[in-house]
């Protein structure tokens, strides 16, 4: 029988939530790495018991942890993220050049084919790769040295590379997203990169249709159709049907199109989920109601999913890496909140239940479907 493992990163440690395929009773393990910020944990699709975790602290810097037994035990591995060659400068908040400085790992993306290969998206924005199970890390410097990079500028949360999508159909094709530079694509395994932001309109930057400078919050794809991408931008929900070459808005009837996470149903490539929040200046839910919005038409037509979710006095947020789906039938959908709740739906979003209610603020949620 299948089982589910939910990997939760919080501001004060990691938690591992497990259930059988019914997804109604859950065991909670943790906190692991108590007191540390866990920006992200993720398992290898090749070896699900191989997990990687980004552990960081303003006091002690960056640590990377690896588990070979599904999160029961962990070992600290390589934490040396050195930019390759001259670091150069990007723009600082005041518009002056500022040297690249490593702050933390935001996202870990294990390879689709090799459990010892894993990518790391870091702040200040750069992409690293390890091919020895995380013992050593090498920068794929073609991204940071892109001709546009000197004009990249951090968003309020830092200049972070937060999204890494590996194309299962085109070996060597990688999509990444940076706040606030935008989306980039490599077709040669990360050696060279092109901006993929045509069609994005951001009124918060001097040239709203600039090639780079957009605050992309998250992009998502369905494995069966990697040329179709969905994006939650600072404002606007967007869609690309040509592997990022162009984008069109699909915000449709959403109550607000500001938000952070976006994800795709495991079996229905046109079914997508977002959690709108009120605005860029009010990072909480509109009307005090926790509503996941689902589109079964690839955008534009959205329905509010509310059953089991608080519909009054709820002012949490859901961060960009804090939503995930399982691959059971029906598809399970999961998200974590800034209030420490992790909600699960075992029916593709029709109804929801909290797995846990009182964790530290949730930063990331990943789901593994184990067989």
């Amino acid at each position, binding site marked *: 029988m299948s089982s589910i493992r939910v990997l939760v990163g919080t501001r004060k440690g990691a938690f591992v939530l497990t259930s059988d395929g019914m997804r109604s009773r859950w065991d909670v393990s943790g906190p692991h790495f108590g007191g540390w910020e866990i920006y992200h944990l993720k398992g290898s699709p090749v070896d699900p018991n191989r997990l990687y975790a980004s552990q960081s602290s303003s*006091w002690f*810097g960056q640590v990377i942890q690896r588990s070979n037994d599904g999160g029961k035990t962990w070992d600290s591995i390589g934490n040396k993220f*050195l930019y390759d060659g001259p670091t150069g400068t990007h723009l600082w908040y005041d518009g002056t050049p500022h040297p690249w400085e490593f702050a933390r790992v935001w996202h870990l993306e294990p390879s689709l084919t090799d459990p010892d290969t894993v990518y790391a998206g870091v702040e200040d924005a750069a992409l690293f790769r390890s091919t020895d199970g995380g013992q050593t890390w090498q920068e794929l410097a073609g991204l940071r040295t892109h001709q546009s990079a000197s004009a990249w500028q951090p968003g309020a949360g830092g200049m972070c590379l937060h999204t890494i999508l590996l194309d299962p159909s085109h070996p060597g094709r990688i999509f990444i997203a940076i706040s606030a530079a935008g989306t980039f694509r490599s077709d040669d395994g990360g050696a060279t990169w092109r901006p993929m932001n045509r069609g994005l309109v951001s009124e918060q930057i001097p040239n709203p249709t600039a090639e780079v400078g957009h605050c992309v919050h998250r992009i998502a794809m369905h494995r069966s159709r990697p040329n179709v991408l969905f994006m939650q931008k600072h404002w606007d929900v967007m869609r690309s049907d040509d592997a990022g070459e162009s984008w069109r808005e699909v915000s449709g009837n959403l109550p607000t199109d500001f938000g952070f996470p976006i994800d795709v149903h495991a079996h229905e490539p046109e079914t997508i989920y977002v959690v709108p929040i009120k605005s860029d200046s009010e990072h909480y839910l509109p009307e005090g109601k926790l509503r996941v919005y689902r589109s079964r038409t690839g955008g534009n037509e959205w329905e509010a999913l509310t059953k089991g979710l608080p519909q009054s006095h709820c002012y949490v947020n859901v961060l960009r890496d804090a939503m995930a789906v399982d691959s059971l039938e029906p598809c399970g959908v999961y998200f974590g909140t800034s209030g420490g709740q992790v909600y699960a739906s075992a029916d593709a979003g029709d109804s929801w239940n909290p797995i846990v209610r009182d964790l530290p603020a949730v930063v990331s949620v990943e789901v593994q479907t184990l067989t």
Partner: protein
Amino acid sequence: MIRVVLPAHLRTLARVNGEVKLDVPGTVTQRSVLDALEAQYPVLQGTIRDHVTQQRRAFLRFFACEEDWSNESPDTPLPEAVAAGTEPLLIVGAMAGG
């Protein structure tokens, strides 16, 4: 033996309890103590001082003999009591406040 007291999070990371005891060859300085500490516990590399610049992480302090040595040169000899092992070098996380 040189005695070093680590903050709780680093004791957990290094999987040690209580003080750490180190053989430090030559003059006992911040640098030589941290070199020996990181050699014995490689997991601590990068958590106390930067991998490249070797500068102290901003939110950590170095105390010894009731004095703050954080802003001394890393090559300044530490107090004789630390070198003799009668007093520990304390690595302390700054108070968070709030």
